[in-house]
């Protein structure tokens, strides 16, 4: 609760900071301070809740899982502020507003991990989405940014309608909004309940950009200001998964109910893996490649929805960290470059050896090479599905797609190390930035050797 309140409060505070702080470069520090306070508040939540506690008249439920995920989300946002915060100024004049919007998104994320009522789910999804529509269009003079914003808004609000429809149908079938009391039974489902499950499922699949609901993703991620894409493609996406998993595992996993939707989600997973990976191979711009890579990674995270066990919960937490840290790092380096195509990376190893090295570690992590966090993230999710017993075909498809993903991640590594050229940075690379990159890379490697460091909090 404290985390939720503090993030929402800091959103408002930062809007006012914009009025009173004239030096735009300083706003970043207020945001960093806010994130640190939210982190502490969240830690305090964990101490208070102990195991698990229900709050706000049964609307919200704080558990060790939600506290841990909140910590991951706030921690990654902190890293994001430190690595990318100075790039906010280049987007436009309203720097403080951008930070405020990100804090509002964060408040939505806090809710998405702890809702225990469908209304709260709806609220959390909307609180996350609306600031994103604004952020996508923040670069007002850029036509592509406008297009991204409009597209995202239209598609997003359409899906919101579908989500609401699903919630209404579920209410009709069960007579309650509380996800723990739905009691859809263990036998056959009424058509009402089944369509409710499917409609909410599709709406959430849209939010996490799973195929075939992924068409907005490349355009929005590509058109939005790069610095905001870094946020939208990582922490926000992970939060969407947390909401998805929470709803489906708590309400729809008992007995035979799972059988009704599991195959559909499995097919969505397979389609997401195939489309994400194979389309990413053909991209010329690294930014667009990262957009498709985020779809491909979403395919892996969908594994967590198919398996209802402890391993899946551990896996999604690890995945959220591994994927977010690595992708934020890659975007932060991308932001420093002049040219966003693969050629723009040519010879980076010679001009900026440290940037190239950390970027390599991030890319290896995304590809799932051992001794990086990405390996254990993939490992846990794969083994969660294997543990479930069936759908081994999906696991094998998954690992083959992981091999394909090596192709486009290694293209960047090849450009940096083996291609001649002088990769130009458009911005001065400061020592502090390098230090943060090293810290991020260290997180990736340490979690790749000892994943237990995070999992012990579950």
């Amino acid at each position, binding site marked *: 609760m404290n985390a939720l309140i503090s993030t929402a409060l800091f959103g408002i505070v930062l809007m006012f900071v914009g009025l009173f702080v004239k030096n735009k470069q300083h706003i970043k520090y207020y945001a960093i301070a806010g994130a640190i306070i939210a982190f502490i508040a969240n830690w305090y939540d964990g101490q208070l809740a102990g195991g698990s506690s229900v709050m706000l008249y049964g609307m919200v439920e704080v558990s060790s899982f939600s506290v841990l995920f909140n910590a991951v989300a706030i921690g990654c946002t902190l890293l994001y502020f430190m690595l990318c915060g100075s790039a906010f100024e280049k987007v436009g004049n309203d720097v403080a507003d951008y930070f405020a919007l990100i804090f509002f998104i964060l408040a939505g994320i806090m809710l998405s991990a702890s809702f225990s009522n469908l209304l709260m789910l709806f609220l959390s999804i909307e609180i996350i989405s609306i600031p994103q529509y604004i952020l996508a269009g923040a670069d007002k003079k850029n036509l592509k940014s406008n297009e991204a914003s409009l597209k995202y808004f239209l598609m997003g609000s359409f899906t919101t309608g579908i989500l609401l429809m699903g919630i209404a149908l579920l209410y009709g079938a069960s007579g309650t909004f509380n996800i723990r009391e739905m009691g859809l039974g263990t036998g056959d489902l009424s058509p009402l309940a089944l369509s409710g499950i499917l409609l909410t499922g599709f709406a959430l699949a849209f939010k996490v950009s799973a195929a075939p609901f992924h068409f907005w993703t490349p355009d929005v991620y590509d058109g939005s200001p790069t610095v905001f894409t870094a946020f939208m493609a990582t922490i926000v996406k992970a939060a969407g998964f947390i909401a998805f998993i929470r709803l489906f595992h708590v309400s729809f996993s008992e007995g035979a109910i799972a059988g009704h939707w599991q195959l559909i989600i499995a097919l969505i997973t397979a389609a997401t893996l195939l489309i994400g990976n194979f389309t990413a191979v053909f991209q010329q711009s690294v930014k667009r490649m990262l957009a498709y890579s985020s779809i491909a990674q979403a395919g892996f995270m969908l594994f967590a929805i198919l398996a209802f066990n402890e391993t899946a919960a551990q896996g999604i937490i690890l995945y959220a960290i591994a994927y977010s840290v690595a992708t934020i790092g890659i975007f932060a380096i991308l932001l420093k470059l002049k040219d966003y195509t693969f050629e723009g990376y040519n010879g980076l190893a010679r001009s900026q050896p440290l940037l190239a090295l950390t970027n390599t570690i991030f890319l290896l992590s995304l590809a799932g090479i051992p001794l990086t966090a990405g390996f254990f993230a993939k490992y846990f999710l794969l083994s969660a599905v*294997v*543990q479930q017993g069936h759908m*081994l075909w999906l696991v094998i498809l998954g690992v083959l797609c992981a*091999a394909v993903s*090596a192709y486009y991640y290694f293209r960047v590594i090849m450009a940096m*190390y*083996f291609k001649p050229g002088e990769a130009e940075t458009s911005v001065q690379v400061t020592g502090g930035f390098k230090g943060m990159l090293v810290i991020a890379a260290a997180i990736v490697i340490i979690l790749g050797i*000892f*994943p237990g460091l995070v999992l012990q909090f579950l």
Partner: protein
Amino acid sequence: MLTVLLILIPLITGLVTFGLKGPSAKVFSLLSSFASLVVAVIAWQQFSAAPESLQFTQSWIPQLGSQFNVGLDGMGTMLCLLTAISFPLIFITVYNREYDRPGAFYGLMLLSQAGLIGVFTAYDALLFYVFWELALIPVYFLCSMWGGERAVPVTFKFFVYTFAGSLLMLVGIIYIYFQTPDHSFSWTAFTSLQISTQEQSWLFWLFFVAFAIKMPVFPFHTWQPDTYEQSPTPVTMVLSGIMVKMGLFGVIRWLLPVLPQGAYMWQEAAIVLSVTGIIYASCIAIMQSDFKRLIAYSSIAHIGLMSAAIFANNEQSMQGVQVQMFNHGINIIGLWIVVEVIQDRLRIKDMREMGGIATYAPKLAIVLVVISLANIALPLTNGFIGEFLMFSGLFQYNPWFAAVACVAIILAAVYMLNMLQKVIFGEANTLTATTADLKTGELLAAGAIIAVIFFLGVYPKPLLELVQSTTAIVNATAWMK
């Protein structure tokens, strides 16, 4: 502890080497490789005295029940020795070469050594997988950065092949992991598990494909000739001398004891693939005019024979394979040393442009002749005993397979002698007349290899005794009965 030391020495010195500049990198890495050699020899002595003292277990990921569990058995000791002997030889051979960014080059070499030793010592399936991948990454960068002009795409193909294969193996590992009663990755838990025949039948392929790509066995071999040709020679030595043994090692350590019935079901298929590979690679080797590609194809043929012998399912062939793993490693590194010297002097790879080197570089010629004969497995050279045991084992399994595989010996003689004729005999041309003979370092490395060739050719007993324990372990599984 010795086992851990074998991994830690190259790992730590490798990381340190990255920071070194100029010639200090090669001196430092040479010293490190000698330190590993000393430890490996001590471990070898320790193994005959008290093998259990080489086991080391430490909790690693408690949530998964995975442990940092390393140890040595006969085959593991032998392969660690092979690794520890090879790296000093490689470093001595290239001691006078100048590499761009030597710190990174030697650092990556040492890291790959750490990965290889890890693979040979891991007794925990997850740890094995981690080292399996870890050995690959440094080699990927080494080949791409210091390789020939086509190195980047070629190495990438190699990388994707092995990466895809090992991911399939990972699925297999996870599947078996969930079958174990206490959810453990340990080798003991894996081998004592009773997996149903039907499951073993498809699990076999998940593992076999990973190992077959690494060996490589026909039809998974297409990455190999290109990679050997394009890699810098020291890396090719690591690849062909040690790394391909990872595949054979994996079959003996993990595949046979864990999935004996699967292996039994598919043994014929595996042997057919292997024997096809022998004949196919030998025929292509005869047609090659590129020195490096010739050795690459000859290596496919030799590995094919070893793979066939593993699946021949008897004690003799199993002994032969293990002995041959060591000897093949020594011989092929010897061949690459000669290639490296010739490349250094003449800067050509096409054998048609060579000739008459014997007159101008007699020592080089003698070395090449001895190693080539060992490669054909002439009696009194180290290659003989292993090949004899393997053919004899294969013959017991099925004389027809043995007969087809035996053709490979004749074909090997054809392409090796043909190579000798083209490279060192005949008329010298203006280029080859300038060939300078072996220098001290190269002579030292080549001399050591020739000494090993003759010693093990006359007295293979230490090696046979060393691997006896591993044969006994494989024997004890249901597979041989």
